[in-house]
């Protein structure tokens, strides 16, 4: 069966520090991959999605970037975090036209 792993679960970082969040999927090939951010008590904001290795679509201009170095690996990065980057980050995968499956999320706090 398919599983999705996202880590770390929580992260506290100072302003201006770099960021790397990793997401991996097992049990499927060539999945669509997604990064979302969720502010407290709000809906999900799509940040990036990828339909294949090296193919990244950005939804919102920001200081974040995403990479897909392997078929089932999706990485969210930043060179310099801002206070406004605080939030709950969710990774998800799907097969074409199928529902999305989410990881347990990373709660990022910027100090």
């Amino acid at each position: 069966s398919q599983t999705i792993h996202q880590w770390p679960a929580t992260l506290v970082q100072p302003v201006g520090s770099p960021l790397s969040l990793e997401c991996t999927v097992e049990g499927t090939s060539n999945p669509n991959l997604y990064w979302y951010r969720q502010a407290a008590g709000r809906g999900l904001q799509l940040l990036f999605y990828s339909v294949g290795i090296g193919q990244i679509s950005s939804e919102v201009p920001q200081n974040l970037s995403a990479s897909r170095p392997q078929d089932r690996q999706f990485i969210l990065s930043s060179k310099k975090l801002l206070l406004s980057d605080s939030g709950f980050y969710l990774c998800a995968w799907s097969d074409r036209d199928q529902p999305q499956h989410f990881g347990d999320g990373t709660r990022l706090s910027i100090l």
Partner: protein
Amino acid sequence: SQQGEEDPQALSIQEGENATMNCSYKTSINNLQWYRQNSGRGLVHLILIRSNEREKHSGRLRVTLDTSKKSSSLLITASRAADTASYFCATDALGRRALTFGSGTRLQVQP
């Protein structure tokens, strides 16, 4: 307003009562999906209804879709305390590769 807006924003009911949540959207869609999120966790897919379907059932869940009004509803019958969560609708719009999520309805079921 953004695609996929739910109402009400919050709903509190007693165990055993029915809970109805609504979702409105703006563009033409392939399908509409409902997800559930427990506090601090990832989203879990509940049900998908395609644009050519009008109603769908899954256990205690009943979803309707009215494409002429661009709206959907999620009904949870005989609610339980364990149904307490946030519920999100998400639209799979034509010509778009990613879902658009609404801001959610926070459901509280009192035991």
